[in-house]
């Protein structure tokens, strides 16, 4: 049945003249609107608009599936030109664990986004190609589908934009996109899987990005004790200390954490999707080590500002902050309690935080209640396991 549908769609695509196709794809590409609360930067998505229509469609062709959002999370935003399909997700999952996407076939996305560590690597700074280390801590990919910006400095607007970055990054997987594509092309099972997901045509880096992003959109985790307490009506789901911690988290005259780590009426992302300087990454002499968001915007107030990370599953993703400088949740809470590190661009909201010793203990307890249920099919697919032992 699905096969038949596939054939119809690709036949229709083939019948269109390149021009007609350009018109057909243009609006979708330009808008790429994530149906979601965050403002979306259309500018980045529109980069491809003026160009010639691509010779083949990189839109997934299978039956569109819906990924159910768990308790505490809103519907998952899906870009119009990369709908979720079972074939796309399955392919993306394989690619996420694919070491052939790196020079020397040594690293996959999962090397730094390990499902066992809630898709982080447990290191201060990630170790990439030949042991090279970057300067930033690997954030979790779990729930990244909800973020309006990717990376600590927001330099990618979508999961699709993000995915190709690490493959070619010299300190990460260090392999040109041409080589990645040709390695995949050499494997008939990949050629088949790409055609199944995107229709006839070559494997392209664009298709690789889309498949990986499709898989990442299934990495959604909610239904934590906090969600059951807050949105599920289960008043026993949290310990008394965690309930006190939640109150402190929201209280503007105490933790004021929810000012940036947002909790909504019907769901909670624990991020405002914005960038703030909370005084992380200031050296002993008082200078900012990493300019953060400023490197993208060149706006002074963005100096040392980093994306507010989600706090879901935060108990599983140590160490913390963009530079991995804080080892435990206790360290994080103490960091806030002390007002962080002074610097000229510090967000004034952090200065208002007032936490007693009891407040700090309760906050840590609360942060521990944010560990959610992990999706079932997130780990490496069976076939990759055997390939990795090659």
């Amino acid at each position, binding site marked *: 049945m699905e096969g038949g549908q596939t054939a119809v769609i690709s036949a229709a695509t083939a019948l269109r003249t390149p021009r007609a196709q350009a018109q057909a794809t243009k609006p979708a590409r330009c808008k790429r609107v994530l149906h979601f609360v965050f403002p979306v930067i259309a500018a980045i998505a529109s980069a491809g608009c003026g160009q010639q229509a691509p010779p083949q469609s990189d839109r997934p062709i299978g039956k569109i599936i819906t990924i159910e959002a768990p308790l505490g999370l809103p519907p998952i935003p899906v870009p119009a030109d990369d709908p979720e399909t079972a074939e796309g997700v399955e392919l993306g999952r394989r690619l996420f664990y694919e070491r052939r996407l790196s020079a020397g076939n040594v690293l996959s996305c999962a090397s730094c986004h390990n499902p066992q560590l809630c898709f982080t690597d447990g290191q201060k700074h990630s170790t990439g190609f030949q042991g090279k280390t970057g300067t930033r801590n690997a954030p979790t990919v779990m729930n990244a589908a909800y973020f309006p910006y990717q990376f600590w400095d927001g330099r990618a607007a979508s999961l699709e934009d993000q995915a190709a970055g690490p493959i070619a990054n010299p300190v990460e997987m260090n392999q040109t996109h041409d080589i990645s594509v040709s390695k995949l092309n050499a494997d008939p099972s990949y050629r088949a899987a790409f055609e199944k997901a995107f229709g006839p045509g070559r494997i392209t880096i664009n298709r690789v990005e889309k498949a990986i992003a499709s898989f990442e959109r299934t990495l959604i985790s909610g239904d934590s004790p906090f969600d059951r307490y807050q949105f599920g009506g289960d008043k026993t789901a949290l310990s008394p200390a965690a309930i006190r911690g939640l109150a402190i988290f929201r209280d503007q005259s105490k933790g004021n954490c929810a000012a940036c780590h947002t909790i909504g009426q019907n769901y909670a992302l624990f991020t405002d999707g914005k960038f703030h300087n909370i*005084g992380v990454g*200031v050296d*002993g*002499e*008082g200078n900012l080590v990493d300019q953060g968001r400023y490197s993208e915007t060149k706006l002074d107030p963005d100096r040392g500002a980093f994306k507010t990370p989600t706090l879901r599953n935060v108990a599983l993703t140590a160490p913390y902050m963009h530079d991995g400088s*804080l*080892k435990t949740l*206790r*360290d994080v809470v*103490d*960091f806030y*309690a*002390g*007002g*962080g*590190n*002074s610097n000229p661009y510090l967000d004034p909201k952090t200065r208002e935080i007032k936490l*007693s*010793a*009891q407040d700090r203990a309760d906050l840590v307890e609360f942060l521990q209640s944010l560990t959610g249920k992990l999706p079932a099919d997130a780990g490496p697919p069976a076939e990759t396991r055997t390939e990795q032992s090659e």
Partner: protein
Amino acid sequence: MKLHTVFFPICCVVFGSCSTPAHKEAKSDAAPAPVYFKIDPATAGTLAGVVRFKGAKPHPKPVDMTSDPACVDAHHGKPHDESLVVDAKGDLANVFIYVKSGLEGRKFETPSDPVTIDQQGCWFEPRIAGIQVGQTLKVVNSDPVTHNIHPMAEVNRAWNHSQGAGDPPISRKFLKPEIMIPVKCNIHSWMHAYIGVLDHPYFAVSGNDGKFRISNLPPGDYVVEAWQEKLGTQQQKITIPPSGAVETAFTFKGE
């Protein structure tokens, strides 16, 4: 994109040629390397003395650290308030004594050794520290907890810095003289210290026996001030004759 690379060198050339004369002028205007005052060891003298306390012997209040149990463990012994430390004989410790005037117009070299403040047992060690302008203040955290040292400077720039257990020392400098900068820990409200910043090396802190000594002082007339965090300041006019060893005493009265 290509255009940028083409334009860039041209811009450089233009600016380069323009800025050459200005650059030269700036150079001839530049201040000469600082000439430091040479202390003649043959004539330098010493000011030594003792600080005493008169009045009812204070009873230091115990400090309650129970809100951070790790601090209770880290602080060996029972902590007591140290804002007024008097021994059995009435000697007053932790008084900052320094030359307030009489050294004008002389420039002294900045020592390369840092002044260290350790956070140990959720306590600042030492409580009273003197440092020279431009000298490095090294802040160490020897505790198993996070501290956030906060020198509340007014003449210098105030700052605060978070230091977790095992974090490396931090190094800072103060660029202007300031008597005295109160220092607190943003996390542990009972932690207090004071830093005196001077543009010369003539300062001392009285020990538990109340004694202090300022040596290598060029002969001359000085105003010397003694500062105590609760009892305020006192001044004395002191003359140091060549190679003189002058003895003095300060007495602070309790409330």
